[in-house]
C-alpha cells in the first residue's frame, strides 16, 4: 500500500470539543465541505435511534422475558421492508413443506378414522364433519405450529447464533444498529402475520387430501365429506388464537436461543436444538391451554 493511499484524514472527523449529545453538534464538527454536503443529504429516516431497552450481554441476566421486552421495545424501530423480506422467507418458502406435511398427515388421519369407524359402527358419514372440526379447532394450527417450530425456529436460532459467535451482533451495536430491532423484530412481526395465513393454506391442503382419501378408500362423496356442521364459532376462534399464539412464541423462543448462543459451533448447534425443542414445547403447551380455556369459557362450544 503506497503512502498516499494511506491519506485517511479526509473524512468527517468529529472534534473532541464537539462531542455533545445532539446530531446537530456532530454535524457542526464536520469539516467545511463535508458539513455542507452532510446538511444537504442527511435524511431523517437514516438516523436510527437505539431503543431504550437493550438486551444484557451477560447470559446470567438473560431470560425469555428480557428478550420479549427488548423485542417489544424494538418494534417501533423495525423497517417495513425487513418485515416483508422475512414474511417471504418464513411464509412463502415454508409453504411447500407445510402443505406436503399437512396433506399426508390429513390423509393418514382420515384413513385411520375410516378404518376404525368401519370396524365399530359401519358408518363413515361422520368422518368428514368430525375431521373438519378437528382440523379447524386443533390440527391445522398445531401441525403448522410444530412444522414452523422446526423450520423457522431452527433457522432463526442458527442465523442469530452464528452472528453472535462471530461478533456480528456486537459489530451492529457499534454501528448504532440495534440487533433486536434489525434482526428479531422483523422476524417476529413476519411470523405473527404469516402463521395464521399459513395455517389456513396448510389446513386447506389437509382438507383436500382428507377428502380424496375418504373418496378413494371409503367411497365417501366429497359433498358429504365436506360438511362443516360441527364447526362452531368456538372452533374457529380456537384455531385462530392458537395460530396467532404460535406465531408469537416461535420467533421469540428461537431468537432468545440464538441471541444467547455460547461460543463455538457446538454453541450454535445447542442453540438450534434448544430453539426447536423450546418452540415445539411452546406450541404443544399453548395449544393445550388455549383449547382448555376456550372450552371452559365457551361452555364446550
Amino acid at each position: 500500500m503506497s503512502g498516499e493511499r494511506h491519506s485517511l484524514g479526509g473524512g468527517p472527523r468529529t472534534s473532541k470539543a464537539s462531542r455533545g449529545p445532539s446530531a446537530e453538534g456532530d454535524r457542526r464538527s464536520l469539516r467545511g465541505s463535508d458539513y455542507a454536503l452532510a446538511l444537504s443529504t442527511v435524511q431523517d429516516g437514516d438516523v436510527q435511534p437505539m431503543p431504550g431497552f437493550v438486551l444484557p450481554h451477560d447470559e446470567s441476566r438473560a431470560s425469555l422475558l428480557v428478550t420479549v421486552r427488548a423485542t417489544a421495545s424494538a418494534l417501533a424501530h423495525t423497517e417495513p421492508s425487513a418485515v416483508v423480506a422475512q414474511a417471504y422467507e418464513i411464509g412463502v418458502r415454508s409453504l411447500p413443506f407445510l402443505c406436503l406435511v399437512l396433506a399426508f398427515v390429513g390423509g393418514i388421519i382420515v384413513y385411520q378414522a375410516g378404518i376404525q369407524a368401519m370396524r365399530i359402527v359401519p358408518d363413515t358419514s361422520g368422518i368428514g364433519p368430525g375431521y373438519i372440526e378437528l382440523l379447524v379447532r386443533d390440527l391445522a394450527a398445531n401441525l403448522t405450529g410444530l412444522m414452523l417450530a422446526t423450520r423457522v425456529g431452527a433457522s432463526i436460532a442458527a442465523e442469530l447464533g452464528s452472528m453472535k459467535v462471530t461478533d456480528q451482533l456486537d459489530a451492529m451495536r457499534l454501528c448504532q444498529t440495534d440487533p433486536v430491532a434489525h434482526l428479531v423484530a422483523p422476524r417476529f412481526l413476519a411470523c405473527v402475520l404469516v402463521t395464521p395465513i399459513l395455517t389456513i393454506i396448510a389446513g386447506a391442503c389437509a382438507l383436500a387430501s382428507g377428502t380424496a382419501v375418504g373418496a378413494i378408500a371409503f367411497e365417501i362423496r366429497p359433498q358429504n365429506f365436506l360438511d362443516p356442521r360441527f364447526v362452531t364459532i368456538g372452533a374457529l376462534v380456537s384455531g385462530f388464537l392458537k395460530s396467532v399464539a404460535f406465531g408469537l412464541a416461535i420467533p421469540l423462543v428461537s431468537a432468545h436461543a440464538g441471541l444467547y448462543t455460547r461460543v463455538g459451533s457446538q454453541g450454535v448447534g445447542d442453540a438450534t436444538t434448544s430453539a426447536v425443542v423450546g418452540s415445539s414445547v411452546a406450541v404443544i403447551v399453548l395449544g393445550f391451554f388455549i383449547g382448555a380455556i376456550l372450552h371452559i369459557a365457551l361452555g364446550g362450544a
Partner: protein
Amino acid sequence: MIEFRGVEKSFGPKVILAGVDLTVQSGEILFVVGTSGVGKSVLIKHAVGLLDPDRGTVHVDGVQVTGLRERELSEVRKQCAMVFQHATLFDSMTCAENVALPLRKHGILGRKAALERAEELLGAVEMEAFAKRYPGPLGDGQRKRVAVARALALSPRYVLFDEPTTSLDPVSARRVDHLIQSLARARGVTCMVVSHDLKSIFTIADRIAMLYKGQVKLLGTPEDFRTSRDPIIEQFITGNPNGPLETT
C-alpha cells in the same frame, strides 16, 4: 487516553479479569498479549461498552464508559471503533454499504454522501474496486481491510483491533500491520491491538501488556519483553510447550 481501573469480570464461576489496571496513552500502539482464553478480547470490549465490568471502571478521554446506557454509549463509540477478529461484515450489504452503515446510523451523513465517503475509505485500504461487491466471496485479508475501512468511517480517535492478523496469510498480515502503523503515525489514532502474532508485536508495538491469570503481568516496551528474565514471559515469547506458563 483509555484507562482500565481495577477491572474485574467473571462469566458464571469463571473469573476472566481479576483487577486489570492499564492505561493506553494517546497516539500509541499498545498490544495486549496473552494465552488463548486469558481475557484479552473481553478486556477491550469493556472500552466500547460491549461489556460492563463486575467491578472497576473504564474511562475513555476521562468519560466513564462503565454504566452508560446503550443510547449514551453512542458518543463514545463515535470516538472509539473496533475491528473484530472475524471481519463482521454484513453479507446482505455491499462493501460500500457496510462502510457507510455507521455514518448513516450515527446520523453523520445521508445515504448518498455516506456511500461516496465509503468509497473513499475503501480506496484508503486499497479495496475501492470491491465497493459494489458483496463481502461473502472475498478473502479473509480483503474482508479485514473492509472492516478496517468501516471502523475508520467515523474518524475515531481510538481503534481497537481484536486479533487483526489471525487467519491471514503473511503478506495480508503485514499489510494490516502497515495500516495500523500508518493510522497511529500519520493520524495520531490510538491503537489497542489484541494479538498473538509475535512478528506484528515486535514490529509495530510501542508498548506491550501481557495478561496472565486475569491481571497485567508485564507492561513495557518490546525491548522490555525481549530482555525480560521472567520465565513466564520467556516461555510466551519462545513458545516452549514446557514451562511454568499455565494455559486454559
